[in-house]
């Protein structure tokens, strides 16, 4: 039932698009599309954005693991602060790679293992107490990754001393320590695996797959990118906490729930990463290369008289500007005044339409994730 209205909506948009704009331009478009250098775009994506982003993130997850080990060897409030800082850095850096769920990341279900929230704290406590767990199971998505870490270093007690006591005085202290270490270690191990594959053969597999069919890298990745924006950025960070689909605001669904003042920063970082990727901005920010924006300009994509690439950037800017008015803690924002959250959702949804309908149509890419099975 869920997918149908969306599907019809797309049809309606398609209909209006076809009847108003493209009729006299189609032959030109097709010619130009064939001459756009898709491989150069894939190379820019891989070499200047994806690989350096993973390299950077891998270094953050390694630090996170090292600081976790240091903490469990001698738990203290001071060392807790160090892990928290490593946690924040890594969680922010994760926002730059989460959209790249392709290749090894897709095989591993990387994003689900690193960032399924809300964490299932009942199960986490139970598993710590029984000492019996296997974090490789997909049924344990919500018991690991950043959300579990958030709980373990920010949510176990009301203040730092109380939290540290779980790792010192608690009868199960050693079990808490092992679990904390297992979670950190797994975040790093999975990240190393994904990063290694990009730095190994997968980079060439990706950039050489220039086919414009549904299995080509551009088509496949574009689906991943737009799906990330729709489901994980729009719905995950804003829609579910705001109750955009149910009418019931749910602060417990906020990302980084226990860190409290961190969720907006994560949201902004994700927005910035998505927009930079759209514009082909190198990970180090120094310059920009071939991108969706250039591809759209090349095809001279127009929506209602305006340049589509500029419209999309304008929409990203509007979303970021609106985010300024949000509380640093989105959980607090939901609790105190949910309307700005719903407004954010509406702006994000407009961007979804621009990306999923206008951009993908202009690039002649079919949406492959609408038709999910539902079973």
């Amino acid at each position: 039932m869920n997918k149908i209205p969306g599907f019809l909506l797309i049809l309606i948009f398609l209909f209006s698009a076809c009847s108003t704009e493209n009729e006299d331009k189609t032959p030109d478009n097709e010619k130009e599309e064939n001459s756009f250098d898709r491989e150069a775009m894939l190379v820019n994506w891989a070499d200047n954005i994806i690989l350096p982003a993973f390299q950077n993130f891998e270094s953050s997850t390694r630090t996170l693991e090292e600081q976790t080990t240091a903490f469990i060897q001698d738990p203290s409030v001071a060392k807790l602060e160090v892990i928290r800082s490593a946690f924040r850095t890594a969680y922010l850096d994760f926002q730059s790679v989460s959209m790249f769920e392709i290749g090894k990341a897709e095989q591993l279900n990387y994003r689900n293992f690193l960032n399924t929230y809300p964490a299932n704290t009942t199960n986490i406590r139970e598993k710590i107490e029984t000492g019996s767990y296997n974090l490789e199971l997909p049924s344990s998505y919500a018991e690991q990754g950043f959300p579990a870490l958030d709980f373990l270093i920010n949510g176990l007690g009301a203040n730092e001393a109380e939290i540290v006591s779980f790792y010192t005085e608690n009868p199960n202290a050693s079990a808490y320590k092992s679990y904390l270490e297992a979670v950190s270690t797994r975040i790093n191990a999975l990240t190393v695996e994904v990063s290694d594959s990009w730095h190994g053969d997968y980079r060439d597999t990706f950039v050489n797959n220039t086919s414009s069919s549904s299995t080509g890298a551009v088509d496949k990745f574009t689906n991943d990118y737009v799906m990330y924006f729709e489901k994980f950025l729009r719905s995950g960070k804003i829609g579910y906490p705001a109750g955009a689909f149910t009418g019931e605001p749910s602060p417990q669904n906020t990302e980084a729930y226990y860190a409290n003042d961190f969720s907006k920063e994560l949201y902004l970082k994700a927005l910035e990463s998505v927009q930079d990727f759209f514009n082909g901005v190198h990970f180090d920010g120094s310059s920009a290369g071939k991108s969706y924006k250039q591809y759209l300009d090349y095809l001279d994509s127009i929506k209602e008289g305006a340049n589509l690439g500029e419209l999309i950037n304008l929409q990203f800017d509007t979303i970021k500007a609106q985010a300024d008015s949000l509380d640093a803690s989105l959980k607090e924002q939901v609790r105190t005044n949910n309307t700005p959250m719903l407004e954010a959702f509406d702006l994000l949804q407009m961007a979804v339409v621009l990306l999923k309908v206008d951009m993908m149509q202009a690039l002649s890419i079919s949406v492959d994730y609408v038709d999910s099975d539902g079973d």
Partner: protein
Amino acid sequence: MKAYFFTFILAGLTLTSCSSDDDNKIIDGEDTVVIPENYSFERNGNSTVSYDGQTTRLKMTSEIMGDFTDFDNATEESLSNMFANDNNPFSSAALNESSKSVKSKVAASNLYFSANTVESNAIKTDFEDFIATQMNAVKTNKDELAEPGIAGQIADGSSIRYVNAQGLEMNQAFAKGLIGALQADQMLNNYLAQPVLDEGENRANNEAGITEEGKNYTTMEHKWDEAYGYLYGDPSVPAEDPNSMLNESNDRLLFNYLGRLEEDADFAGIAEETFEAFKIGRAAIVAGDYELRDEQVAIIRENISKVIAVRAVHYLQGGKAALENENYGSAFHELSEGFGFVYSLRFTNNPATNSPYLTKSQIDGFIQELLEGNGFWDVTPETLDSISQEIATAFGFAVSEA
């Protein structure tokens, strides 16, 4: 996208033509056949359409499927009781009190199984085995990671799939298997089969307007409606105008997959054609025009059989693509659905021969190729392609269309 767009236009045109025409179309032959706009037939001002029994079985199937992965509460016994409707197994009293069961109509058609109880029983046992495997081997390992030769759970994106030692999801085998063994078999090989429609005095009674005792329909009318009910009988599907809920209903069995074919430009039109055939055939019965009726039977048999074949190939190919990307969870889910549709090929009906499009031994061969050794863990792209090709060829479509 273009394909979807085209479908939309077609649907729009169809809608327009339906609503602007006169309500009833008339085919002139020896008898005058009056074809209503919707599946609506009356005698003395009251409807003659009834298929409660089919709706009951579809509801039972939904409940069974709902419990199939409920490892905390369901057991082999509870699912088996639901399958056979023994010991008040359902949450609904109406279902418990019903004299009907799903199991009694599995592989139970007049045409294929009335004198073939050996195979009929073997097929019923297959479904019992799907239940037993799920509630024993799979349930025992539900907290283990599946590996070649070992049952357990496996990730498919944010979903968790529970598979047996060969990577097969038993719930998919059961549900997609029933599309053939229950729905297609009862429709195509039982209620639409001439020996059933024309049994005993059916023709004479139909022409004389002699209705069943206490009912408003003739036996032949009712048989036809029972076939209709297996396709359109889900409670969320409107009886008179089922296609108005195509791809929007809660049905997860045959009607759902008819909708999937409709969405594919290569097969668009099949939903309308099938509905028209049901309607014309029913109108032909009212008019006593059995030749016209049997022409519609041929259309329905071909189309419903095609739904099964196209989805079998679709999922085998989807599984192949996912295997090539080493997305095992996603691949196993596709192959499990594919397995169920392959299993269902046994119940298809080629109107040219009045028998399945592929022989039992061919289909058994496919199943063996899919499951031998460690099953989906080591099935090759070549095997999936060769099975796909054989199916597509038998049904006259291209693998790429599915």
